[in-house]
């Protein structure tokens, strides 16, 4: 990629991809817990946020 100017892009691409995948999975886990998990405790706590973000709810 020719647009890489910052040091992050200079990191060995294997490490960069691994860190990217790790962040993607961790982020998805957070969003799943707040927005999608069927647990009653999580649902009731995050209820208003689920509606606010337009996540499928109920």
């Amino acid at each position, binding site marked *: 990629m020719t647009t890489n100017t910052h040091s992050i892009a200079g990191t060995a691409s294997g490490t960069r991809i691994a860190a990217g995948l790790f962040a*993607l999975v961790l982020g998805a886990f957070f969003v799943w817990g707040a927005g999608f998990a069927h647990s009653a405790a999580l649902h009731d706590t995050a209820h208003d946020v689920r*509606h*606010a973000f337009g996540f499928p*709810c109920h």
Partner: protein
Amino acid sequence: MLVRYLLAALAAGIFAGVVMTPIHYLKLVPLIEHAETYEQGGHGIEPTHDHQAGLVSSAFAHGAAHEAAGSLILAHSSAAAGEGEEDSAALFESRALGTLAANLVTGAGFALMLAATALLTGRTITARTGALWGLAGFAAISLAPALGLPPELPAMPAADLGARQAWWILTVGLTAIGLYCLVLRREAAVRAVGILLLVVPHLFAAPHPADLSSPIPPTLAAEFAVASLATGAAFWVLLGLSLGTAMDRFVGAKA
């Protein structure tokens, strides 16, 4: 280096989550609370399926919802379990505290995913490009799924939860990949595939209930859908900007 990158993303997400909480309370939570009065059959209007919306806790209602796949579900009325009692299963006593916590987690989650996208595609998010990254996130995660499943209020009729979640996740995923192909790639063929990916989820109808009758006044639902998208746009632009600023400050300096 990468640890700093991820910590900067977390900080930006948590910041965006904190800022969004009062905005939710200003624009959205009053509408949700208003809708919940209809959920309990208030305002002289009976829910069409009050045998389902009736005296069950939200936990039980969810169980019933999974069994009745594809059917009309008007359940989920936590307040209907007792006389105006608040959620019993929530992790926090206060509803506002729960909203704050959920906003923090959601903000951190989306920030990590946006930062991960930049990392995986070999791009950098800066304060200058942050708003554009945020708008891309808005398009993929708020706008595209809202075309099939508009943001809904409690007590509105809805199809099976699992089916709607599956359609939502599929639409978000395809839209995100489509945007990547269209915006970040140069090849004409890849861009054409990107356009195709943006369109495909909307050719398959999102799951909708057979019976659309609802106790919620249409004006209230319309107001909520627009308010939800508007605050969603605000969240994503704020998240992109704070992510870019955090990257500039904590990561970019080491270039």
